[in-house]
């Protein structure tokens, strides 16, 4: 999964709790992104008339392009965030400074 560029330096034997936590966090984020794509592309591509239960041709093609476009858009934003503030991650995104 490449939304983040985190490298994980390992331990050997036993459970490295920090590494587990990072993996769980990454898993949560991938799931979150997936759910957002499902939602965004459903809104963009699926007619809400529901006259039938199958995806028609137009919807199927739209979904493929939508997912692709979302990844590109995601990458663009990621690059932008990195260039705007290389340290935005530590600052919580310009939000609340506790």
């Amino acid at each position, binding site marked *: *999964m*490449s939304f983040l560029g985190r490298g994980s330096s*390992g331990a050997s*034997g036993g459970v490295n709790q920090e590494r587990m936590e990072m*993996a*769980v966090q990454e*898993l949560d984020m991938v*799931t979150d992104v997936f759910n957002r794509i499902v939602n965004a592309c459903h809104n963009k591509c699926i007619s809400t008339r529901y006259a039938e239960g199958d995806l028609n041709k137009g919807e199927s093609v739209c*979904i493929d392009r939508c997912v692709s476009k979302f990844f590109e858009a995601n990458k663009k934003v990621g690059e932008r965030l990195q260039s705007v503030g290389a340290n935005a991650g530590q600052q919580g995104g310009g939000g609340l400074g506790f």
Partner: protein
Amino acid sequence: MDFSQFNSAEQAQMTKVIEKKQMQDFLRMYSNLVERCFTSCCNDFTSKALSSKEEQCMINCADKFLKHSERVGARFAEQNAEAMGSPK
């Protein structure tokens, strides 16, 4: 995701975490689907029972949502594989 650098204890723990999350994700998907389809399909509140038209709409909506999710999942996996392949 690549868990290949995990040792066996870590992989075992991760498997349990993933199983638990899949259950939670499935349940969230389920109630999300119901809310979304209900919002699209049910607009007549002169009756408390689902009309046959509303019922058909719910079933089509659920079927379509599952197929949509599957298709997004397939594309998502491809894009991820691609993204993993090139930069790292």
